[in-house]
């Protein structure tokens, strides 16, 4: 019997080996490395305890990057969960079935385009002179708002965040539509019989009934916002003056440009803790739901 059990274990072995080696080990090793100072160019590592974390506390760029991640998370929740839910509800309530499918597909298309493509495209759209964003502002008489969006330290991160909303809201809208479709029809009929208006129905029926999905999306969006890397690298590289730096790009810059591998590992640990917290919330959430069900 034991021999068969061991043979059976081979089904799970590849998965376990891969996960252990490429997921768990790097994360644990990362924590260990964050306690050292070392350079890729020189041999040897110096144990410094929590020095790298102290360095982070005193590093204004680190705090700025963290703040940018928070902006990212908040904006993404507002648009990719809040606004997307309204959009999904409007699509379901007001639009005929065929057109609804078309619109949903159209909104989704940017999500099928990679971040690199979207980032490079928007980098041009934001150009101060020939860019379409400024052109569009001029066309509607808002010349005063014209701006060097990515070149100004005050707006660079928002340029990136806006692009990311453009790219991702269709994805969440699609998911929320699916969730709305799962709501039993009777609830809406009951609400109509009670004389509830469309807006009240939205808040009294739709919002509570898709709460499961919105909670999940909020958690995913937040942890995604702390892992942001691609769009920032492509669009601004963290500049100007580190104004659009996020934790991911600051980790990369510290490791490969600044040659401070231990510090980079410490930043990695901070990102890890934040996303782990989000993941743990997700687990707790689904656990509670399972109990409730």
């Amino acid at each position, binding site marked *: 019997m034991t021999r068969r059990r061991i043979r059976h274990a081979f089904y799970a072995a590849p998965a376990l080996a891969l996960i252990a080696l490429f997921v768990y080990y790097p994360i644990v090793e990362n924590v260990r490395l964050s306690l050292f100072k070392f350079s890729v*160019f*020189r041999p040897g590592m*110096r144990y410094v305890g929590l020095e790298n974390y102290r360095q982070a506390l005193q590093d204004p760029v680190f705090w700025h990057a963290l703040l940018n991640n928070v902006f990212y998370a908040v904006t993404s929740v507002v648009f990719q969960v809040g606004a997307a839910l309204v959009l999904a509800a409007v699509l379901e309530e007001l639009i005929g079935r065929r057109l609804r499918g078309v619109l949903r597909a159209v909104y989704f298309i940017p999500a099928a385009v990679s971040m690199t493509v979207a980032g490079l495209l928007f980098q041009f759209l934001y150009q101060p002179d020939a860019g379409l964003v400024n052109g569009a502002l001029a066309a509607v008489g808002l010349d005063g708002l014209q701006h060097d969006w990515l*070149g100004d330290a005050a707006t660079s991160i928002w340029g990136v965040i806006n692009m990311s909303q453009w790219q991702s809201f269709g994805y969440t809208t699609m998911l929320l539509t699916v969730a709305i479709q799962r709501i039993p029809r009777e609830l809406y009929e009951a609400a109509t019989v009670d004389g509830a208006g469309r807006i009240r129905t939205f808040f009294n029926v739709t919002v509570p009934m898709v709460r499961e999905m919105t909670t999940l999306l909020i958690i995913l969006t937040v942890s995604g916002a702390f892992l942001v890397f691609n769009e920032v690298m492509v669009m601004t590289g963290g500049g*100007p*003056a580190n104004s659009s730096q996020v934790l991911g790009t600051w980790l990369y810059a510290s490791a490969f440009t600044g040659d*401070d591998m231990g510090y980079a590992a410490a930043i990695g640990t901070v990102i890890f803790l934040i996303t782990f917290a989000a993941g743990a919330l997700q687990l707790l959430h689904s656990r509670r739901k399972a109990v409730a069900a």
Partner: protein
Amino acid sequence: MRRTPAAAAGCLLAVLLTLLSGCGQAPVRVTADDFRLAGKPHGHLTVLEKWADPEYAPYFKAAAREYEKRNPGVTIDLQAVGDQPYKDRIAVLAASRELPDIYFAWPGRYAQKFADGRLAADLTGQLDGTRWGERFEGDALRAFTYGGRRYGVPLDMDAKVFAYNEKIFAKAGVRRVPRTFPELLTACDRIKKAGYTPLAFGNQYGWPAGHLLTQFNAMEVPADVLARDYDGGAHAFTHPGYVRAFKDLARLRQRCMPPGGTSISHESAQARMLYGKAAMQYLETLEFSYLDESGGAPKAYAENWDFFPMPAIPGAKGSPRAIAGGVDGLMVSNSSPDKALAVDFLKFLTSREQARKMVRELGWLSAVKGTADAARLPGLAGAQRTIASHDIAVWLDTRADDKVVNPYLSAADSVLGGNATPEQAMKTVRRGAENARRFGVRP
């Protein structure tokens, strides 16, 4: 489904502990410093450089093929990547102690890291008092000298100058090339009045501002102070010349550059000058080929341009003959199995014949003496004279400590964007330098 959470945790811990076999930085495997070829050149070489630009890449490929042709027994795997990818890649290769036999180096502390880490071969014996060494301009050779030892073979020399459109200067009534910094600013005012952008400037990647500051710092701060500060000395960057340098940058920004942001790329800015929208651009002599019709410039520009170095700044305490620039070089890996072959290939690459070919085809200035007359490009001879009569101040972003560079460029961005005063900018730099000392990587 009958295990307890405790058993689960135990299993997990066991797996993790077995995985936790810490691996640090491996020592460098230094091979013997044997530079004598045993018989005819023979073997395999790997080369990694950063001239991936379609304008430049063919020359280096052809040079490798030529060497292979002359030495049938030799194969060369030459790879070119862009600037930033090069920095990342060489860092990773250095970490894994798997450097190619020959690799690119910027002068300053950038190359010094390789020398200090014993990753680059000491070529002093090959370059000092030898016929090979005598081929090079002294300045170029000194660019890769650390502690009196020579680690790099210089290939080309580069300096930063203002290229300008003569027609726009004439239209704006700028009769002569500015000789002092205030004259430059006045010229900008005139050009602006005539309806042109005085100075095209694109700082998307930060280094263009870094180059301006390299120039201003060298002019405003005494050379010995500058060298100590760039090398990471204590109480660095306190000389008042640094704040003045940022003030120079701010004045240039205000009076010469277009209003609005500077987030466009250096190349986009260049297009503005080439197509007659802007009068000047601060650019590298290596870029002269782009100002020629053969490099794609419109005729109206190509036939009407000239250049001048940064004019003197009255009252500056630094070196008035300084010119921001650099030397591009190649290093030999200290773990290369065949250093003799690597050196032989470098000798070929820096032979007069090959160097003249480079000057002719790429429009670069070679670090090899007696090659400037091979130039096809107008302006190159003048560039050579300019470099010869100035002292090269190596690019701040490769010259200074890694940790200082990011705050410095970031502070420059803030000054350009009007978000920081020169004094505040210098405070940022000093804090960066302080952090570099406190949290430095030095083991």
